[in-house]
């Protein structure tokens, strides 16, 4: 019972943290509350948010996906290459690169589920492989010169709302729908809580893992398209380190790193916190390096909180 009370408190706590930070930045800097800045934040976090949906699934089953950043990079480079060098249509380029992103995720899933490789190593290896591949394909130089219509995904608006924000909102909705309304969601929580008991309850655990890593690849791929459309140029380092921010968003959102617990609604809060933190620090002229230090500390804080709960037996047995 006690654990339930604490869980519920923690449930709300992340939104309180968000509000406190929001107010603090609003007081500290008068530019923060301007509508243009708020939209900037929303556009910035949209990529994190999209990728965070896939990462939420992965962490929910007690896994990790370090390939997110390099999937974003390879999607940038491949989509750009197809559009510019191969004269693919926008739709064909997006379709092909999203299939590639999903396939990379599926490769991770295969290694983790079938070969039983530790997720941290398997996805670390794919991270390096596809970062290298992206570099080779691009020749190390940016690729640009797309059809102006491609801008819409990163820079377009529907009414006053930026398109990437809409894509993020759809991603979160789909994520929440999968977790709460479909039986796959039930399976994810079950597998994250106890793999063997899940298998003995008839869940095809390996299939679930394969599916989840594939989905993580797909969501990273979508984030990659948004990024490419925003920057209008494919950089061979586009997604470097991206997984760090995404993991932070998810863990800050209360998804337990040992699996089994987590909600999309709180991951939204986690994502927004990372968004305003980054934006606030930029507005306050905090150096990039200092930002790294702060973000690292935030991750330690989030995981530390989760681990202390685990240690106290409040979350897991």
């Amino acid at each position: 019972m006690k654990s339930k009370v604490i869980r519920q408190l923690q449930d709300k706590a992340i939104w309180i943290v968000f509000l406190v930070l929001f107010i603090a930045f609003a007081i500290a800097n008068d530019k923060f509350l301007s509508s243009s800045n708020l939209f900037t934040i929303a556009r910035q976090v949209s990529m994190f948010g999209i990728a965070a949906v896939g990462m939420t699934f992965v962490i929910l089953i007690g896994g990790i996906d370090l390939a997110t950043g390099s999937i974003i990079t390879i999607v940038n480079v491949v989509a750009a290459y197809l559009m510019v060098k191969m004269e693919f249509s926008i739709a064909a380029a997006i379709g092909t690169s999203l299939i590639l992103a999903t396939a990379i995720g599926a490769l991770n899933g295969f290694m983790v589920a079938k070969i039983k490789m530790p997720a941290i190593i398997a996805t670390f290896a794919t991270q390096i492989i596809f970062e290298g591949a992206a570099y080779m394909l691009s020749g190390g130089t940016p690729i640009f010169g797309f059809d102006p219509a491609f801008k819409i995904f990163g820079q377009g608006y529907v009414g006053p709302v930026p398109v990437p924000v809409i894509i993020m909102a759809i991603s979160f909705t789909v994520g929440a729908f999968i977790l709460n309304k479909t039986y796959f969601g039930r399976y994810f929580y079950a597998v994250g809580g106890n793999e063997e008991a899940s298998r003995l309850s008839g869940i095809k655990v390996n299939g679930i893992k394969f599916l989840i890593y594939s989905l993580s690849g797909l969501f990273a791929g979508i984030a990659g398209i948004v990024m490419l459309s925003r920057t209008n140029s494919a950089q061979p380092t586009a997604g470097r380190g991206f997984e760090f921010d995404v993991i932070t968003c998810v863990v800050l959102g209360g998804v337990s790193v040992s699996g089994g617990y987590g909600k999309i609604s709180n991951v939204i809060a986690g994502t927004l916190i990372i968004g305003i933190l980054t934006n606030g620090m930029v507005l306050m002229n905090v150096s990039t390096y200092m930002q790294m230090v702060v973000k690292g500390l935030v991750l330690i804080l989030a995981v530390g909180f989760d681990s202390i709960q685990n240690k106290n037996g409040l979350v897991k047995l």
Partner: protein
Amino acid sequence: MNDEYVLQLQHITKEYPGVVALKDVSLEVKKGEILALIGENGAGKSTLIKTCSGAVIPTAGKIVVNGKTFTSMSPQLAAENGIAIIYQEFNNVKGLSAAENLFLGNPIKKGIVIDKKAMEREAEKAFNQLNIKIDPKKLVGDLTVGYQQMIEIAKAIKQNARVLIMDEPSAPLTSAEVESMFKVCELLKAKGVSIIYISHRLDEIFRLSDRIVVLRDGEYVKTLITKDSHVEELIHLMVGRDLTETYPARTDCINRDETVLELQNVSGNGDKDISFQLHKGEVLGLGGLVGAGRTELAQMIFGAVEKTSGRMFLKGKEIHPKSPRQAIDAGIALVPEDRKRHGALLTISVKNNINMPTYPKISFLSVIKSRKESEVATYYQKNLLIKTPSIHQIVKNLSGGNQQKVILGKWLAANSELIIFDEPTRGIDVGAKVEIYTLINRLVEQGKSILLISSEMEELMGMSDRIIVLAEGKITGELKRDSFDQKTIMRMASAV
């Protein structure tokens, strides 16, 4: 008088919340004797020896070693006072050599460098003393289990153990290895080392031991002089209790014309050549000692582990369950022994647990029909009288008996025909036990078939229509209800 004994356990009591594991147990070990410790599953043997190593702290009682009195031990104290325990799981490093394992923790050094040559020399000497032939350079992982055990013994002797406690040492060994282990035991005895020997195998006890201490239900029963005793007396002392608990009555609902499960010469997962039939409406008990291969058999029937040979039929149709999913779809369910690790999904709700195997059936395009989901959960919550504030409660917060009912509800929702219960009442309080028994009766009355694994002799005899006894992975006997007898079962289980 005290000088005669190297180790005395005096009035040891160990209580856990709600359970008394040991009640006022005393025993003495003389210098240079082999003392056998026997008892049924759960008699308290392991708990008792763990008090000697400090793994269990007694609630009351004293441990006297060489005249020094302790109220509890610690691993260090035990080592300092010459007590060594050889567990079934060896404490070795497979990637190191025999010599290095012998000196694990305190290697011979030359300066700061480990002196391999010297260790190998010393190891050779230590092995020679015990008349065992092991190449000290060989990796332990490449040695047979028998030799690994010898290294454990050599390690204990090198650390000046005066009392060696061996927990089921013969269980993993081949018969030839058992012979060499016996020789080592005799040799140690001649050197004045005392041995406490725990084994289910009564024939070994009669060959090896000088005296036998019998425990039952956590209590001391009797000490016997081995040469003045015999197997029948021992079995009588081990099981000699009256059937006290009453089991809810059940009308015979067996349909003998309808075979639900049939195994023909099934082997694998440690079991050999298992054949039996289970009829509709029957409770078939699987008796045997811990490690006899009953859980392993259940795993094969449930598809959690694949059988290697033999045939399996469910309602006349041959099945090859390769995964629990396939077994579940065929109508087989398993209520596993380890409820918290393998049975209930503790971190999710009662509702989700009950529906887990059947979600695809109550969903449309993978979207759950949530009203149906709640209906099913509520139905089984009421039907099985699961005590929970709501179906949304996390299963972790339920009592053991109610968790067990949630697991059962899950299989009833999945419409299972054959339900395998592996130790269904372990760790459950008496009231909840009777409820589980009543439920089992209700299930067979509804035409389900039950395979019941139980280490509690009374439960097995009280609930089964028929009992098959396993020992060391093989069927050693079968009894009909009218010929149930504790001693017969014990004899079959001990394979004597």
